């Protein structure tokens, strides 16, 4: 069972690395938001540094919404998902493997690219450090919500647009605590508690997602 689990992860990563690189496109999108926003706000470095946590999180938020559809879509269309469903590995574990791959391919590269945004948005090293930690804590929750949305919409041909609309309201707490875990200086310092709450929400969503998404994938196929 452990081997099958690992096999799915290795296969999906290999497929993603060989067949073009969605991951790089997402990173490009993420960095581009950081480049475009200053054009709208103006080149004021003080203001940009103040808004930087919000900009980084919005960029990560949008990038994760864009990536949702790729979680199950290809496997559904070429029948792999059907085969996996009749294999020995329970669907819940298949979904968990997909979730891990999804995080590795869409969220992890963003975290690696964050220093670029930090330079562009005039963040100081302390803020960059806090941003990276908050992204590491928050993105698994975003990925888990994305997996649930992808599972629910996988049997829809137009699922690509519906899933982000479904997921977005539920992701608001992650955005709130994600930015809360970075921002400091104004009012009482709540970054510590925000960080813990962000981690709690992520853990809970990662725990729920395999069951909810597996239920949806099974219901979508019969």
């Amino acid at each position, binding site marked *: 069972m452990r081997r099958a689990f690992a096999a799915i992860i290795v296969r999906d990563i290999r497929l993603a690395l060989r067949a073009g690189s969605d991951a790089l496109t997402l990173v490009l999108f993420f960095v581009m938001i950081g480049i475009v926003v200053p054009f709208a706000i103006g080149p004021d470095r003080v203001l940009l540094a103040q808004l930087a946590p919000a900009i980084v999180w919005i960029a990560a938020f949008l990038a994760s919404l864009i990536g949702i559809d790729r979680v199950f879509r290809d496997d559904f269309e070429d029948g792999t998902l059907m085969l996996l469903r009749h294999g020995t590995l329970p669907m819940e574990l298949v979904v968990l493997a997909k979730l891990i791959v999804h995080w590795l391919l869409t969220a992890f590269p963003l975290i690696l690219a964050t220093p670029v945004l930090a330079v562009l948005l005039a963040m100081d090293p302390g803020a960059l450090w806090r941003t990276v930690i908050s992204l590491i804590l928050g993105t698994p929750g975003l990925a888990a919500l994305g997996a*649930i949305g992808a*599972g*629910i*919409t996988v*049997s*829809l041909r*137009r*699922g690509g647009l*519906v899933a982000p*609309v*479904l997921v*977005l*309201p*539920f992701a*608001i*707490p992650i955005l*709130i*605590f994600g930015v*809360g875990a970075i921002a400091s200086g104004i009012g009482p310092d709540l970054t510590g508690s925000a960080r813990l*709450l962000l981690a709690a*929400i992520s853990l*809970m969503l990662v725990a*729920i997602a395999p069951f*909810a998404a597996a*239920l*949806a994938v099974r*219901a*979508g196929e019969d």
Partner: protein
Amino acid sequence: MSHSQDRPGFWTRLSNPGQFLIWSRPLVVPLVVVTAAVFLVGLWFALVNSPEDYQMGDTVRIMYIHVPTAWLSQFVYAVMAVSAIGTLVWRHPMADVSMKAAAPLGATFTALALYTGSLWGRPTWGTFWEWDGRMTSTLVLLLIYLGIIALWRAFEDPLRGARMVAILTLVGAINIPIVKFSVDWWATLHQPASVLRADGPTMPGSILTPLLIMFGAFTLLFIVLHLVGMRTEVRRRRIASLERRLAQRGA
């Protein structure tokens, strides 16, 4: 023995779609009459027979619409969540129908709560919209309702759609308290709860009585609309299946 075999059990009769149409039919008109009566009494109390607020004046009367619709915005979600369990556990068609009929009602009540709240906020707080905890979480609830409706509309097959919506509704039921808590954490300006509190209500009876009557009226309104919506949905499905059969015969 044969008697009990002929007559289906109480729950079967209650929940069979055909039987549902039969037993719910005589309920509709009396329920409409009772709802209208309770509304008349409640509105009379609310508009005529209740005092002005010493600070807010007549605008306090908006509360008699605002608070019941806000309560229903959450109650309807609870109805949907219970129906979602019925869909997933028992795969019951009436649970699907109940979920589907409740979603637009919940969205409407939530929108009404936001609308009346913003009408009330303009004269008392001086702004139509304030990003405070409760208003924001109600707005998020509206987004969730709209997402659920969008998902219903995306599926052509209502049976498959029902299960997907049920999963989303239950994930939402776990998530909504978190959204509410996080939004409260994020900003707090709204006054704290004043009706349902451990140490009893803080309102005088002259305002509480009409408010409670309006609670009853709006809840009845939801029950009537839900019942009629479910009847319509059962009929709609019946028509769809008849059309399918007709098309098959033609082919």
